[in-house]
């Protein structure tokens, strides 16, 4: 059965800390891995990764994919209270647009 597993499930840090969120997957016909940020309601798109070893970066956030070891990490440097959210990892298939999601990592950044 295809699955996406995230760790840790929750994390509490202080402002300024750097965090690393993990996502591993076992999916047939893998096409892409996506990271979303979910604050209360809609998941908002962060990154899509399709190639191994190429870092994607947006401000203090960055992400990389390892297709050999079947995992991805999301790094957030110099965390701020506004980074508090649930971070979702999802995998897309080669055929079709379906995404399967991990259970999310709840990040709480304390002042």
């Amino acid at each position, binding site marked *: 059965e295809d699955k996406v597993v995230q760790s840790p499930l929750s994390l509490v840090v202080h402002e300024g800390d750097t965090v690393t969120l993990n996502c591993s997957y076992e999916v047939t016909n893998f*096409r*892409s891995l*996506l990271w*979303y940020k979910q604050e209360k*309601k*809609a*998941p*908002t*798109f962060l990154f*899509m990764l399709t190639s191994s070893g190429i870092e994607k970066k947006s401000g203090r956030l960055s992400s990389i994919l390892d297709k050999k070891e079947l995992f991805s990490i999301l790094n957030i440097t110099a965390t701020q209270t506004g980074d508090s959210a649930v971070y*979702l990892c*999802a*995998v*897309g*298939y*080669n*055929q*079709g*647009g*379906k*995404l*399967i*999601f*991990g*259970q*999310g990592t709840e990040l709480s950044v304390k002042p």
Partner: protein
Amino acid sequence: EPEVTQTPSHQVTQMGQEVILRCVPISNHLYFYWYRQILGQKVEFLVSFYNNEISEKSEIFDDQFSVERPDGSNFTLKIRSTKLEDSAMYFCASSEQLGRGEAFFGQGTRLTVV
């Protein structure tokens, strides 16, 4: 910035009633999806829709569910006879291309079945 919009934001319905959840996808997108998230659980795929027909559906999407694109802008999810376990947040999403996976999500409709 273009966004997916969903209405209503919250719907309370009695068990056995029919509900219709509405979505307006991003205008140049061609692929539409419904997902749901039961409180405290994962986001789960329900159905994908393209060219006026269902492309793929999950085991959750049984005969009580249906989707429709009644006009050029709206995309609806109908639940024919709601059950308590249908209580969840329902997200509509759309993407420009199939399989790219870069889906953009609406704010969701919280459905509460009592």
